Each structure stands twice: as C-alpha cells, then as structure tokens.
C-alpha cells in the first residue's frame, strides 16, 4: 500500500474534522486454531481480517459499517476499541493516535469512546444490579463527586427511557430490550463522544429493535453523539445511518452518504447485497442471487477481493487490486474500490 495524501483515503470527510479517523488499519490473527491446516487451507498462515482500512466518523453522525458474516466488521470495531491487537495503521481519535498512547492516556481517552455489544445478556454482569452497572464507569473514570454518582447513573437510566424503579433489578429480571437499554445507558453515563455499537439490535425482536433505533437517533440529536454502528441488517442501516461503509473480505469496498448508497450503489457487491433483500411488495422483482461462496479469508483472492463472484468482472480485476475512486457523477464523499470506475 503506497502512502497517498489523506484526502484520497477512505472515509466520508475531507473538509470536516473527523472525530475518529482510521488509517490503513490492519488486523491479523495468527492463532493456531484459525490457521491449522484443513481442507483447502494448506499452507495458510494467519488470517488478515481487516486489510488496510480507512474510515472517518464525524462528530454527531451515525456511520454504519455493513457486511456479512466473516467480512471483518466486528474485528474492525473491536480493534477501534483496542480490544484486539492491531498489526499496523493509525487510530486517530481527535487527532491523537490511540495506538501510541500509554495506559493512562488510553484510560482517559476511553471515557470518550464507549461500546455497546450485540448480546446484553453477555455484556452485562449477571451479579450486578442496574445501579451498580451504571455507577461503575463513573467510579472508574472518577467523574464528579462520589456522592452525586448514583444520581448521574439514574439520569442515564432515564435518558434511555427506563424507569428508575428498575435500578435494583439484575439483568435476568429484565427483558431483552430493557437489558440493551441498560447497556446503552452504561455507555452513555461517562458522557462519551463516540459509541461503537456492534449489532446492538440484532438480538431483539422487531418492536424492541424499533425503540432502540429511535433512541439512538434521539441521542445523536440531543447530545451530538457519534456512532459507529456495525450491522448486517440493511433495513436498520437505512433507517438510521448518515453514512455507510460496505465491507467485504476485510476491505471497505464502498463508502458513501446513506441516501446515496441506497439510491445509487456503485460497487457490484453493494448492488448484489441490496438486490438480495426481499422487498415486502409482491409487485417488486424477486431477489437476485449472487453466484458462489465468499472466498475464505485464509486464502484471499488476488486482485479485487470480490472478482470471483462479480457479475461485472473486467480484465484487470483478477490480477490488480483496484484503487479507491469517486464514481462518476457522485460527490467526493462517495468512494468505491472497483476497476469499473477506475478510468
């Protein structure tokens, strides 16, 4: 990867100052189990889950990261949270590289970057009451006088639309939707600027999902909170996101403002993804199936990551990795990695 000027790199912003800028991030697993030789993976050593990703999240905006299982979206989210070791690259939060911080600096930065995970049953401690869970970030970051912390914890509970009566409940005494609200309240209580949310509504049923989505939108409006919203569900992303990046086999193949991505998808993979969603209208043409299976991250293809399944493959796709460009007629905020647009 040659170094290009920053404005040529991914992400959506080049005129606004980004809150989070991910630059050429590489995440690699070299775990024995993942790389043990098996059928079709002989000689493979290590898996590159995130391949030189560039991404920006602007203050007060919701940036969605979409992709299918195994595309690397969770690895990317966890690397941003520094829950996974990073092979190379930069994670600039307000211009400071999270990867070069010492423990104390990182601890201070983490107050501003909080996380919500998919399964609140797993991410909340079963042995702590709601109040204990919500107080912990305040104690950990030593925010405000100790005497006022319970009150702040309750304010966070109210902010997510839960009754403060629930404060002595334990996770098993709450419904799935309530638990996810508690997880969101825990992320809010330290008053962060960015929340990284990995599939936060995937484990909920339709009505609980809708309420969490409304809540996230409201938090962006009232508190100017930014979200990196990881999801496989395109209909959720369409209802929520300001901008979207599409991930395939460790690479961001397309990044665009949400309305534009859904109206004018430029990458053949994005188009295939959108065309796969069954529309609840019998008059609409049926979903179109892609051909083949995604390549294994253990044996990534040469050239473009998508070329083996691409219905619009042209000559250089199999051999040369496409650079990033703006699709013709689109704004500079729309970036795509595809040879079709590279001329």
């Amino acid at each position, binding site marked *: 990867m040659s170094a290009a000027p920053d404005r040529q790199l991914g992400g959506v912003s080049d005129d606004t100052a980004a809150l989070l800028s991910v630059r050429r991030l590489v995440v690699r697993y070299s775990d024995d189990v993942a790389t043990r030789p*098996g*059928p*079709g993976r002989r000689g493979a050593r290590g898996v590159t889950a995130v391949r030189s990703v560039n991404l920006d999240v602007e203050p007060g905006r919701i940036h969605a990261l979409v992709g*299918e*299982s195994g595309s690397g979206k969770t690895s990317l989210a966890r690397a941003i949270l520094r829950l996974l070791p990073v092979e190379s690259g930069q994670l600039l939060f307000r211009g400071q590289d999270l990867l070069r911080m010492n423990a104390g600096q990182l601890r201070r930065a983490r107050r501003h970057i909080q996380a919500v995970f998919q399964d609140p049953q797993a991410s909340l401690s079963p042995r702590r009451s709601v109040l204990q869970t919500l107080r912990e970030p305040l104690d950990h970051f030593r925010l405000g006088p100790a005497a006022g912390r319970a009150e702040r914890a309750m304010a966070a509970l109210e902010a997510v639309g839960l009754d403060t009566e629930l404060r002595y409940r334990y996770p098993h005494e709450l419904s799935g939707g309530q638990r996810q609200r508690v997880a969101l309240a825990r992320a809010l209580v330290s008053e962060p600027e960015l929340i990284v949310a990995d599939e936060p509504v995937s484990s909920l*049923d*339709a*009505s609980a999902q*809708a309420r969490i989505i409304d809540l996230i939108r409201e938090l962006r409006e009232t508190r100017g909170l930014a979200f990196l919203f990881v999801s*496989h569900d*395109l*209909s*959720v992303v*369409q*209802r929520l996101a300001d901008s979207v990046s599409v991930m395939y086999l460790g690479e961001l193949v397309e990044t665009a403002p949400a309305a534009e991505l*859904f*109206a*004018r*998808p*430029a990458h053949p993979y994005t*188009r*295939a*993804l*959108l*065309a*796969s*969603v*069954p*529309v*609840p*209208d*019998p008059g*609409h043409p*049926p*979903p*179109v*199936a*892609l051909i*083949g*299976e995604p390549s294994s991250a253990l044996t990534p293809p040469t050239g473009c990551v998508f070329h083996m399944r691409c219905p*619009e493959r*042209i000559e250089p796709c199999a051999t040369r990795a496409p650079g990033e460009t703006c*699709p*013709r007629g689109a704004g500079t905020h729309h970036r795509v990695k595809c040879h*079709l*647009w590279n*001329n």
Partner: protein
Amino acid sequence: MSTPVLSVQELSVTLRLGRQMLTVVDGVSFDLRAGEVLALVGESGCGKTKTAEALLGLVPPGLGSVRAKRIDLGGKDLAVLGEPAMRRIRGREISMVFQEPLTALDPVFRAGQQLASVLRRHLRCGRTEARAASLDMLRRVGIADPERVLDSYPHELSGGMRQRVIIATAMACRPRVLIADEPTTALDVTTQAQVLAQLTALTRESGTAILLITHDLGLVAQYSDRALVMRRGRIVEDTLVGELFRKPGHPYTAELLATAVGLARPPAGRDAAGPTP
C-alpha cells in the same frame, strides 16, 4: 394445482405448564395445494412452529397433547397414525427444514452419512447408489464440490452449506410436502437469496408443496403464492399473497404490514446506477 396434498382440520395443541394447560394452537384448519408455496406468518410465540411440529408428530407426549379432526396427507390421516407409521412417512412424504442447521445436523456424523441414511432407509438403496444419489442432490442445491461436502462434518461447513445439506436431505425422496420453518433466518442475505432460489427450483421440479413458516413479510411477498396469518394460535386470515398486501382482510394483518421493515426505496436496476466503461 388445486387439489390439496395436505388438508388440516381443526388442529389444536395444548401444552402442559406445571398445573396449567395452555392452548398454543387453537382449532387450525387449512389446505396446502400441490406445488404451491403457502406462507404461515406471525410474530414469535403465535404458534407457527408448534403447528409444524404437530403436523409432523414431533410434539413429545409428555409436553402436551395434539388433537385434530383430520390431517390428510395423500389419503392417510396423520392424526391417527402411530409413531412407527409416522417414521415411514417423515422424510419421505413430508419433510422439514428447521431454522438452525447446526442443531438439525448431528455433529458426530459426516454430512454424507446423514444424507445417505435418509435414502437408504426410505428408498432401500445400497451404499454406492446412496452416495451417487447424495452427490446428485448436493449438486442440485448448488454445491460446487459435493465430494468434499459429503465427507465433511457439520462444523467444517459454513451456515449456508449446512442449510443446503439439510435441504438436500429433506428433498432427497421428493416428498409431497416440505415444511420449512424459518429456513433462512440464520443466514446472510446473499446466502438467503441463493438458498431460496435453489430450494424453489428443486421443489418446482418435483412438484413439492412448501409450508413456509416465517416472520419476514419480504419472504412472503417474494416467494409465496398464498399466506396464512396466525395470531395467538388461530389463523385470522387465509388469502392469496397479492390480496394480502393489497387489501388485508383482518385488522391484525394490516397492523403486521404496517410494521414490515424492508428497504424503503429498493435500489434501481443495474443500468440506472452502473458505469459505462
């Protein structure tokens, strides 16, 4: 197209919950016609899955009781058949595909052994013949390297591959009826589109009728001919899919349609968005 292959009359399922008895399926009647795809839609807990289990005789006697006036499958009344007779019918005349392929496949047997066992049991064919037929079935569900898949254990296969193996197993004896309970809910959207394309091609070829249990109105609109809307154990609407979306007959159906999530504005065709290199 209009003769029913499966005719269900007044099916009820009552579950025992401690001392309480709970009727989760309450006097359900419907016909499944030859070759059609009939969707059974409703929210979680409405009784869709219990209906399917009851049809297949899979509600354990200790859990509750199943009653029906008649469950007619090609002239046989499944409601009065005992377990040995049901065993000859399940997998041969009526099959099922469940939501979670990892629990539907036995982890200690290779995919090929599981697929072949259905063929050997029902069609009484030999080892070699069963293997050849298994390879053929896997090719028909779009598996490019069927030999490798036959010799793999379930954990070595992706979710989409596992579900294809299940579908191949369910369709191996060309049953009259396939009950598919949320068959693609655990899969990615692109895999879902592939699997459903293969499944519908396969059932069309063998004339198998599908009872498609789903909560996804997108699947109802795109893959079904008729739909049954279920609420609290009862069927509140039984209609053609076109009618269902155009003119829902029951207020609950209208409510369900209003909450349907899908892509608000479907993407334009390729030509509209594509570059002109």
